[in-house]
């Protein structure tokens, strides 16, 4: 019953050539004028202020041009006027859903430049908190995707279950959204009393929540009809556009920086499965993130069992001066590959930092992906790519 997308032409970027295909497709001789529709910047389907200028022929999209920059805070300029502790407070505002995971690569870069190594307990707690912020982002996505496709209820389940995880992060770091808990050389504080057992009960709840989402959304035939075969990203074109993370793994690319890239934190001592899906459509992206949420729960349980004791802060001078040099650190953030290229000239702050955020490239494939697609499918594809505006605009 689900009509698949029309056969997309071999990759090219000239919409003019596509226009004839759209007409031939519709078999409409009379030349109807195109309608320019503005999706956003105030629109419920764009997670924030993304504006999509769409040229429609009837309900079918001929060309889509995302307009971004409404949330541009100019991080790369701000960073040049701040010291390292001040920057950690800033960068966890880039991808504000998994904010702890933003701080880790930058602190890792500073520690590499200074030749400082955070003690094992700090590494373990950092990995736990990164995986917890991944769980909180994905649980929200599992509910949010249902909302974009029309089902109101999963969104509330998503927020309800995510609340437990966010409370856990707040109990440790003090901040629900902006933990600012990383310091060069370790962490600001240790875990509060009874936190480990509390985390185990919460992980049990998240595990059950995943089953609920499996039945309510992933198993629903209407959801299949709306997402299967919609917005297919071929692996080689996805990689050429820099799409990373679950979006690329959903197209069958078995690539996860936690396992493959340069070793960071304690992912090397964990055994976890990298989930991929052959189809590369919106359903595959939902399915991959659902499995990755479960995988993260298992990983945090392993980490909690193997949590070493000991100090959480290495010996680091009070005023941090990072020696001269350049370093590139990349990590597997919930949204994809996040990396910092830090140029330092030996001052208390970096000379220049290139922030490679995942959603920027994930969204740059939209003009290619949205050609010949129905309007409701545009919303499905936007939801399945799962980008955060702060991540796009920096």
């Amino acid at each position, binding site marked *: 019953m689900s009509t698949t997308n029309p056969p997309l032409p071999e990759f090219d970027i000239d919409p003019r050539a596509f226009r004839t295909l759209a007409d031939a497709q519709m078999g409409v001789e009379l030349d109807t004028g195109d309608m320019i529709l503005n999706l956003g910047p105030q629109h419920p389907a764009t997670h924030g202020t993304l504006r999509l200028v769409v040229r429609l022929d009837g309900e079918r999209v001929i060309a889509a041009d995302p307009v971004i920059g409404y949330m541009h805070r100019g991080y790369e300029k701000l960073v040049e006027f701040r010291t390292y502790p001040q920057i950690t407070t800033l960068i966890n505002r880039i991808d504000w859903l998994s904010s702890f995971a933003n701080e880790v690569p930058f602190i890792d870069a500073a520690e590499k430049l200074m030749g400082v190594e955070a003690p094992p307990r700090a590494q373990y707690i950092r990995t736990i908190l990164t995986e917890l912020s991944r769980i909180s982002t994905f649980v929200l996505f599992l509910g949010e995707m249902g909302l974009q496709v029309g089902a109101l209820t999963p969104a509330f389940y998503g927020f309800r279950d995510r609340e437990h995880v966010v409370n856990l992060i707040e109990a440790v770091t003090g901040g629900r959204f902006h933990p600012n808990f990383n310091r060069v050389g370790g962490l600001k504080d240790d875990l509060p009393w009874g936190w480990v057992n509390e985390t185990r009960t919460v992980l049990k709840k998240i595990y059950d929540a995943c089953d609920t989402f499996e039945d309510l959304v992933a198993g629903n035939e209407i959801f299949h009809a709306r997402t299967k075969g919609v917005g297919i990203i071929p*692996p080689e074109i996805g990689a050429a556009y820099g799409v990373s993370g679950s979006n690329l793994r959903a197209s069958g690319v078995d690539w996860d920086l936690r396992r493959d890239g340069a070793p960071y934190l304690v992912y090397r001592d964990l055994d976890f499965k990298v989930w991929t899906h052959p189809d590369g459509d919106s359903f595959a992206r939902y399915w991959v993130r659902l499995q990755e949420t479960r995988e993260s729960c298992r990983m945090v349980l392993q980490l909690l069992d193997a949590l070493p004791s000991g100090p959480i802060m290495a010996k680091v001078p009070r005023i941090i001066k990072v020696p001269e040099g350049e370093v590139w650190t*990349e990590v597997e953030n919930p949204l994809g590959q996040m990396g910092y290229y830090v140029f330092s000239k030996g001052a208390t702050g970096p000379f220049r930092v290139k922030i490679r955020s995942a959603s920027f490239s994930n969204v740059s494939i939209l003009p290619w992906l949205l050609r010949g697609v129905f309007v409701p499918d545009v919303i499905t594809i936007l939801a399945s790519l799962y980008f955060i505006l702060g991540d796009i605009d920096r």
Partner: protein
Amino acid sequence: MTDVTPTDPGEPQEPQESSTATAVEEVAPDPHALDDAHAELLARFENELGAAVLDTGKAFGMPIVRVQRNEWRRAAEVCRYTLGLDFLSYVAGIDWMPAPKEGGDDGGSDTSSPVQPTETTYGITGSDGRYQVFARVQSTHGNVGITLKVDVDEDALLVQSWVPVYPGADWHERETWEMYGFVFEGHPALRHLYLPTGFEGHPLRKDYPLLSRVVKPWPGLVDVEAMPGGDDDAAAEPAAAEEAS
């Protein structure tokens, strides 16, 4: 190919006080060493491009190569089609000139932001001008990656565009164009990405002031008032003044 680790020309004026924390460099294995996959990649890249490679270097296990200006697109083609580096991470720009002190040279206006050294030093593979474009490409299966750098002529500001090779470079180049002013030849439509259409000036250049900090007086400027008419000795200068530099 000179294998140079980052040594800035000449010692900076005040001796680099070796803070206790930096682990003793020599004993630990060289942190920049390339694992064999990257070393082999670097070797293959060099014999593919031959003379086009001006300089190579490595930083923390990542090879960096500076290529000639007119070979930039060919380097991309080599990376994508011969070396199989199919994933484009980013394309970005850098301005090596140190930022002029805000509010002229009286200094002390804002000591909360870091004080960068004043002379211009270039990164690992050096640069012949103030501007450079650097990009990173990786392989999604071989988990190797390489960073390429190219110089941008200061008065011509021209760079070859990577869009025909990596379509993903489209947005990255638009951002670098509006932030630094480099014109990418062969780019389908260089127009503003982040900044509003009528925006003049290139914000990420070092000489572009951060207005928000110029407008508001720095709350840290005020000092404890000296005793009225008392015999406060000159030595009781507020301790904070020299500590912050």
